[in-house]
């Protein structure tokens, strides 16, 4: 019979390290169904039939955060055979708070008292025997970083599960609370299973919405419960939820007093580091230097080299020609060769091209996270970013996004709050990435005579788009009313371990290839197909000239949509669609379609804008700038869309993100072009101007209206029954 061990514990308690210790390379990484929370499972080393599920790092089992709800649903719904609760011995007081909740769930609990190496180094002493008695479960000392005790802890958990052991919570609340819990147990006796009785009694006392939802108690019972709870609340002069929390910490304080002897010392090494790193005057310069290195290495030097190598040399010079000559050699049909070389190999290359750069970035992000600096980044940047609904940690995705949106989006992983993370994913690609630079250069060079302000204005537009979107989205029902305050632990600094960093890097890189790969591949094949096939002289077949392709036909249908933005012809429509493959394709496509002599992309890089007159003559300065704005802000390339899908882990949210970006881009370009026409005197007041004015009013309203406020959803239904 297979045994499932659930690994539970606070964030920063060494859970990831222990999970890696226990499972080795036998891991499956994914997400919990339908949410952005990561799920990891693995087989215990040397035990074929023992599965370890790594639960999200949480502080409590309240019904308020996504991670906590995921954990609760898993523990109640799936009922693992045993919980291995990881407790950070160097921060034992707060860690035991979760333990008091886990032991009430009716699932046997074994405690791994981790970070014992640090406890000993600090000179503190923990009486494990006594701790075990007072908590009612076996306690095993571990030090996961040094790989000490992890296996013993897991084996103790397996033994516990095999013997069918039980854990009875030993902490007792004060008399009025215990009496009320007993009373609740009697009232709801028929509705709750005996093994979870304590858990549900406490949850009902707290008026926990999720527990109430699942139990579906009749109104009469609810009213009776409410009466019992209210009388206890009056007696203790506090709300029930706070009473329980207080009682838990009081119980823990007693345990700590009996088992832990702390050596009072001066500043620890971590404190000393922190004094400098988050010092009022030094924090920002240090932060700038760290960010510069992250960017410099992952985007401009090592990362860029690797990406260039994969795209141009590995795929461009080695694989593609080799595959092509092989296919031609065996006499493969032209269209099939095209599909395989340009469509599939090109598509796969587009996926893999980003991977080396991403690995370099993740390597550094993992190191930053592992050593504890990531939390300080949030601490330093919080003030700026929370104004528009983002987290301090959103800074990193946006910074990386200026190099490439794909790793930028993936970097949003480090943001704990679900809404902050989603909003960061949605807005990161507004920052012009490296591939959008040729578009900017083309417009600046060929239409504005190389004006200095065009490139900076692109960044300005990106930042403005993020701020506007942040403010607007924060006021919508989807993102608003976030009642969870920003209370964040600042973990102790420690040296990152090579093993952890490498594994984290690999996990993120490989999950991108798996999850985003299909989206990118399929879309690349689609675009390849529509751009290389078409009707010539009434017969359908492969076309050399993109003018005759299916894509061009689609382009002419779509083109009128872009007319109010100033570029309503099929050529620009096609270029924009091809931009979805990779943004620099926009320039290449315009060059091909308008028959520029030579490679348009290379001409832009060389700064030979005189040669690009063929493109320039189809634009006015205003329509060109409008075209630029649209392409900067609209849906990103397929690789980035794949990354969005990977991170959102939800089709609806992915479509919402892409849809939002495109609508935002369209309306912004619309206003720009229509107002531009009016103010430059190129046209008088028209219907277009009127619509633009309406759009502007709508945006202003969205920006300045009072935000949606979530109403507290507590057990008011019962009050109304009584009233």
């Amino acid at each position, binding site marked *: 019979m297979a045994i499932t061990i659930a690994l539970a514990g606070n964030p920063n308690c060494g859970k990831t390290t222990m999970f890696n210790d226990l499972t080795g390379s036998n891991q499956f990484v994914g997400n919990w169904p339908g949410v952005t929370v990561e799920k990891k499972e693995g087989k215990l080393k040397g035990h074929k039939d023992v599965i370890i599920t790594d639960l999200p790092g949480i502080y409590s089992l309240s019904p308020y955060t996504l991670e906590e709800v995921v954990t609760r649903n898993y523990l109640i719904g799936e009922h693992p055979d045993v919980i291995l609760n990881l407790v950070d011995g160097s921060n034992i007081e707060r860690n035991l708070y979760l333990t008091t909740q886990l032991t009430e769930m009716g699932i046997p609990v074994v405690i791994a008292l981790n970070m014992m190496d640090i406890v000993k180094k600090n000179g503190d002493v923990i009486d494990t025997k006594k701790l075990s008695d007072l908590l009612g479960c076996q306690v095993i000392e571990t030090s996961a970083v040094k790989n000490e005790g992890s296996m013993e802890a897991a084996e103790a958990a397996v033994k516990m599960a095999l013997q069918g052991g039980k854990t009875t919570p030993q902490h007792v609340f004060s008399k009025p609370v215990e009496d009320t819990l007993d009373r609740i147990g009697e009232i709801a006796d028929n509705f709750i299973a005996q093994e979870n009785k304590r858990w549900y009694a406490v949850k009902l006392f707290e008026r926990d919405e999720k527990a109430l939802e699942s139990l579906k108690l009749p109104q009469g019972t609810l009213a009776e419960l409410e009466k019992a709870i209210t009388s206890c609340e009056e007696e203790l002069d506090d709300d029930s*939820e706070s009473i329980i929390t207080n009682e838990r910490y009081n119980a823990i304080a007693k345990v700590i007093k009996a088992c832990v002897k702390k050596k009072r010392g001066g500043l620890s090494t971590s404190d000393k580091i922190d004094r400098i790193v988050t010092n009022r005057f030094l924090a920002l310069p240090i932060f700038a230097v760290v960010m510069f290195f992250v960017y410099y290495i992952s985007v401009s030097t090592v990362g860029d080299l690797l990406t260039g190598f994969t795209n141009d040399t590995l795929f461009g010079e080695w694989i593609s020609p080799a595959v092509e000559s092989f296919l031609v050699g065996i006499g493969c049909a032209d269209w099939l060769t095209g599909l395989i070389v340009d469509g599939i190999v090109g598509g796969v290359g587009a996926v893999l091209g980003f991977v080396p750069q991403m690995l370099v970035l993740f390597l550094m992000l993992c190191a930053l996270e592992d050593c504890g600096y990531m939390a300080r980044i949030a601490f330093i940047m919080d003030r700026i970013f929370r104004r528009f609904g983002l987290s301090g940690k959103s800074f990193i995705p946006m910074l990386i996004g200026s190099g490439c949106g794909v790793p930028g989006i993936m970097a949003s992983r480090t943001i704990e709050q679900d809404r902050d993370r989603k909003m960061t994913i949605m807005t990161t690609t507004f920052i012009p990435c490296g591939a959008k630079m040729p578009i900017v250069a083309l417009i600046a060079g060929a239409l504005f005579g190389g004006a200095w302000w065009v490139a900076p204005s692109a960044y300005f537009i990106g930042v403005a788009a993020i701020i506007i979107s942040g403010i607007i989205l924060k006021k919508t029902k989807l993102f608003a009313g976030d009642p969870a*305050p920003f209370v964040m*632990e600042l973990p102790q600094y420690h040296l990152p371990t090579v093993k952890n960093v490498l594994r984290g890097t690999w996990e993120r890189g490989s999950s991108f290839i798996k999850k985003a790969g299909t989206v990118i591949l399929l879309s690349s094949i689609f675009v390849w197909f529509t751009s290389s096939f078409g009707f010539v002289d009434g017969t359908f077949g492969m076309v050399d000239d993109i003018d005759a392709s299916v894509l061009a036909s689609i382009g002419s249908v779509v083109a009128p949509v872009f007319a109010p933005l100033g570029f309503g012809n099929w050529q620009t429509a096609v270029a924009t669609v091809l931009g979805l493959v990779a943004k620099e394709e926009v320039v290449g496509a315009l060059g091909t379609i308008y028959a520029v002599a030579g490679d348009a992309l290379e001409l832009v890089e060389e700064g030979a804008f005189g040669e690009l007159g063929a493109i320039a003559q189809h634009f006015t300065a205003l329509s060109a700038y409008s075209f630029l704005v649209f392409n900067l802000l609209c849906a990103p390339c397929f690789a980035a869309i794949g990354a969005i899908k990977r991170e959102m882990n939800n089709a609806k949210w992915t479509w919402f993100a892409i849809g939002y970006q495109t609508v935002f881009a369209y309306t912004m370009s619309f206003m720009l072009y229509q107002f531009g026409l009016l103010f430059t005197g190129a046209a008088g007041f028209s219907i277009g101007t009127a619509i633009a004015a309406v759009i502007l009013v709508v945006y202003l309203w969205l920006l300045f209206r009072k935000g949606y406020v979530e109403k507290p959803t507590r057990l008011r239904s019962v009050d109304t029954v009584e009233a």
Partner: protein
Amino acid sequence: MKTLREIPIGQTVMVKKLEGEGALKRRIMDMGITKGTQIYVRKVAPLGDPVEITVRGYELSIRKGDAANILVE
């Protein structure tokens, strides 16, 4: 009674009462800030918010807006 927001850096205070309700209050309490807990105000972030406090032997970052819900003395 003062709120935690008004306490200058370097002072240690004791929690008297928590205001607010639901998720907001629960989250703060889950992190160990309950009645009778000692809080040491350690530092303020370079941009003036949030603040770093020591509570139950570990470091916690909390926004001033949320700290205003914590009554101390």
